């Protein structure tokens, strides 16, 4: 034991949610300790690593791999950190560094639609949340102000106040697709934390078209900004601190967190309140690793709920060549989508979804494709131009119902620290398959309206992850069916809270970060209120 540190609040995980919560608590005068398993890395180094990567299409490639804080990797060779128990592989991606996974994202900051919170009551499927849209509306706005969110106001999520950011101007591609798909499909601006003007000390977007894997100029909000803000607000940060166990007293209150530094020296930190913010896979892993004589199944797991209800947006995609040059690659990578299928009575029958239209440059992917087809010389370059100008790529965000059999457990394998790695059980059910059939029909209709040739659907029966990992720490009123209460507090552990996408009982049809940020701010306020007189 090298360090003896104590704080009012100990936060584990320096991603966007843990960092926002830490900042808010520190600004009330509480001492806050933020433990992060990964290292701190400068944005400029990440940009350099991207440009020098041989695997630029792998969004993880700029982010260094650390055996002490392993993260799932798939390129060039899968590292099998996640033990896939099937039947469908759950190829999660997440980044274990200071700032977390939202270092690489398209800054999509959507609100749920109100009915997402009541799908069981309204449609007889899924789970109701213990809170409503109205409970979260103010926190949604607070998170939007922090991130500088702009977008289409009429997107199904009612607002009391306008977006804090003017929307980023639409690319030529977006304008043409919007016009040609109307009125059958309504293409709208995405809700994004991307600057159209200088905001909070960060510049306006200048079209680097590299939101994923790394914005070179911080024109979009991300967890690295949130984490640095936490440190600048007085939060004590310890990176390369791999928490492997929580200790508790007889009443189930958490008393300490034990962590290894990267040389595997043990440290112990104590606190009054503990907050787990280590993502929807690593947080369940820590709870399960913290099993004790009193809690042999792990913490917060008296009813075997930890890690269950693992959800994502199981996605299919389509690419095609439109009949006019659209030139994706000018402006942000993910600017617009079709949202008219997010809600309705049909939700009792099949999954709702959103359809995302990519504006990412296709030069690299069509070049590989053409080389594979054997093109060379002048014809190759002509085809690179032709396909790069016309190639459109579309994917979906389809709601997966929470299924208790889809879950995170511990595997029999160990990482370099000797800690058990996560095992994932995941399947895609009939409800999602039926929704997917609808999606595919709409893809064909969209392709038709854009005069498409060379239509390529993703492999039937295969689903890709959108990295919107939810459900594994579900909040709910009933301890028998949930892990946390309506404030993110662990059932049975009064001073243990959880933030992040894992506490979301359902995944909805939009990117999940804004909801998780709003919930984290709400949890922070709750902790402030409850500990006011400590």
């Amino acid at each position, binding site marked *: 034991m090298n360090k003896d540190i104590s704080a009012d609040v100990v936060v584990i995980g320096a991603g966007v949610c843990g960092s926002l919560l830490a900042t808010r608590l520190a600004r009330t005068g509480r001492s806050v300790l933020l433990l992060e398993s990964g290292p701190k890395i400068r944005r400029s180094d990440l940009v350099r690593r991207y*440009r020098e990567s041989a695997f630029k299409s792998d969004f993880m490639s700029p982010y260094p791999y650390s055996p002490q804080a392993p993260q799932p990797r798939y390129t060039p060779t899968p590292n099998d950190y996640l033990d896939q128990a099937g039947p469908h592989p759950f190829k999660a991606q997440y980044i274990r560094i200071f700032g977390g996974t939202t270092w690489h994202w398209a800054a999509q900051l959507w609100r749920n639609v109100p009915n997402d919170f009541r799908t069981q009551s309204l449609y007889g499927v899924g789970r109701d949340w213990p809170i409503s849209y109205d409970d979260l509306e103010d926190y949604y706005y607070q998170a939007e102000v922090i991130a500088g969110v702009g977008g289409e106001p009429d997107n199904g999520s009612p607002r009391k106040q306008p977006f804090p950011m003017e929307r980023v101007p639409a690319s*030529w591609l977006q*304008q043409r697709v919007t016009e040609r798909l109307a009125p059958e499909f309504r293409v709208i601006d995405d809700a994004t934390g991307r600057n159209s003007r200088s905001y909070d000390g960060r510049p306006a977007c200048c079209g680097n*078209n590299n939101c994923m894997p790394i914005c070179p100029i911080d024109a979009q909000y991300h967890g690295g900004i949130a984490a640095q803000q936490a440190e600048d607000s007085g939060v004590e940060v310890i990176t390369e601190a791999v928490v492997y166990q929580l200790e508790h007293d007889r009443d189930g209150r958490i008393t300490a967190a034990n962590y290894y530094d990267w040389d595997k020296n043990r440290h112990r930190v104590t606190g009054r309140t503990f907050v787990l913010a280590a993502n929807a896979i690593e947080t369940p892993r820590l709870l399960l690793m913290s099993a004790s004589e009193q809690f042999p199944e792990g913490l917060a797991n008296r009813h075997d709920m930890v890690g269950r209800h693992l959800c994502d947006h199981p996605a299919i995609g389509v690419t095609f060549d439109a009949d006019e040059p659209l030139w994706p690659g000018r402006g942000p990578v993910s600017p617009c989508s079709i949202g008219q299928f997010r809600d309705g009575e049909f939700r009792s029958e099949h999954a709702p979804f959103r359809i995302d239209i990519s504006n990412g440059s296709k030069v690299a992917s069509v070049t590989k494709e053409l080389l594979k087809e054997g093109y060379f*010389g002048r014809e190759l370059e002509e085809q690179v*131009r032709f396909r790069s100008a016309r190639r459109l790529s579309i994917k979906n965000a389809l709601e997966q119902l929470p299924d208790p059999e889809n879950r995170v457990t511990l595997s029999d394998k160990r990482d370099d620290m000797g800690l058990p790695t996560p095992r994932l059980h995941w399947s895609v059910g009939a409800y999602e398959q039926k929704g997917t059939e609808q999606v595919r029909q709409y893809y064909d209709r969209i392709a038709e309206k854009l005069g498409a040739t060379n239509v390529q659907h993703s492999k039937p029966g295969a689903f890709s992850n959108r990295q919107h990992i939810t459900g594994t720490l579900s909040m709910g009123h009933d301890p028998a069916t949930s892990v946390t209460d309506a404030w993110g507090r662990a059932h049975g552990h009064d001073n243990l809270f959880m933030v992040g996408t894992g506490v979301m009982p359902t995944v909805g049809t939009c990117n999940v970060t804004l909801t998780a940020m709003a919930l984290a701010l709400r949890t922070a306020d709750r902790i402030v209120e409850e500990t006011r007189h400590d």
Partner: protein
Amino acid sequence: MTQFSRRRVLKVAGAFALTGVAGQTLFLSSARASSEATQNTLDRFMGVSSALTAREDLDGDLARALLHAHLLTDQDFPEALSRLEALLKAQPALLSSSRLAFAEDQSAQEATARAMLSGWYTGVVGEGDQALYVSFVNTLANVAVSDVLVPPSFSYGPCGSWQAPPRPLQE
């Protein structure tokens, strides 16, 4: 104050490096590359590359870097290059169509041609664990679209400049 065009800035930024999967960068000096690969091999590499790309204006520094990467990832590359060169001299009609269509017994030469084309157009030599990054901004694919696009991670222009119809970028 001197104003540089976007294209010129990108050209300056497009230094070459070799990067392995571990993220280690082996900055390449032209002198070192030249010493490792004979001028004769480089000349032959340039000749075959020109035939495959139908370009006479290939960048010499990039050629040296690509050749160096091929030599690092394939110890038999000089011999493979010789065999491909000989085949193309004997059968120039092989490059008269729009796609590579070598005979079955010429599959090794076709593989060499594909590897060389991949280097020039994607900036990466080798595959999987052996893949080496050589160039990004100056790949021929990026050059082919450089009148309309900038490579990802470089600035396109002021916010909203992408609203206009695509047209050649200003010199």
